[in-house]
């Protein structure tokens, strides 16, 4: 269950942090309900339309990749989505039960030899739209960070994926 932490003034705008881990069967429509929940939290926390569009797109691509490429559409395999959502940033991980892949050796879909290919753009979009993206060594978990552009211009230097995040 999400935990709402209020500051002294009982304001949701400063210290609200929600942490949740949800494990579901690898069915895209079910996983999208988690995405919808995160979108709803983002709206409540006053994330901008551009930020929410970016998070929505990255989650959609990550979920589809996890189900289709990771779990190979095996609905007995699960996908877990873990998130920390605060007014400052969203830290979202999507993990599948597949063999993983090396995201650094993917073909660049922007190159002329690939541009007419039907697929292969999901990881590029995730990396482009999120502020920080990290794949696990096993390659079956993607962790994505998006800062709330309305929450000051704190950037990702001291609060990024390399530092620990609290929930």
């Amino acid at each position, binding site marked *: 269950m999400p935990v709402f932490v209020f500051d002294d003034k009982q304001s949701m705008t400063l210290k609200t942090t929600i942490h949740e881990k949800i494990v579901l069967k690898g069915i*895209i429509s079910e996983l999208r309900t988690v995405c919808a929940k995160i979108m709803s939290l983002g709206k409540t926390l006053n994330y901008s339309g551009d930020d929410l*569009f970016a998070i929505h797109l990255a989650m959609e691509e990550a979920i589809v990749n996890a189900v289709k490429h990771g779990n190979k559409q095996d609905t007995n395999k699960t996908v877990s989505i873990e998130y920390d959502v605060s007014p400052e940033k969203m830290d979202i991980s999507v993990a599948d039960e597949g063999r993983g892949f090396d995201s650094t050796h993917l073909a660049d879909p922007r190159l002329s030899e690939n541009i007419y290919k*039907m697929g292969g*753009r999901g990881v590029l979009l995730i990396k482009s739209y999120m502020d920080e993206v990290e794949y696990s060594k096993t390659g079956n978990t993607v962790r994505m960070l998006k800062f709330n552009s309305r929450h000051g211009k704190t950037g990702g230097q001291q609060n990024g994926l390399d530092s620990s995040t609290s929930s």
Partner: protein
Amino acid sequence: MEDVKPRIGVYYAQNATIVTLTDEKILEDEDIKALEESIIPLIEGHVNLVIDFSSVQFLSSAVLGLLIRISKKINEHKGKLKLCGISSRIYEIFKITRLDEIFDIHEDAKKAMLSLK
């Protein structure tokens, strides 16, 4: 039950067929497959096609694959494909993937039609 998707409008102009996508979001595999099945019969033979995105607020990379399939089909018959009404947020997806360089994108259907003259 949800509405039957995808909802598209088809208009026949003098020198082009105009397909208007009326759903705000295009994500589901079923929707993309249904869109393809609706559009492919329209482009058998030499056809200029304009796809109007002005109602679309969200799409994923799966739609880009569909557009490439449509584009290839149209090119086979020496027709032309024009996209229009793409919101600034969705246009960014085309820019990032550099598909803005291979698709002919116009502000609205009128300008897309003018470009065919």
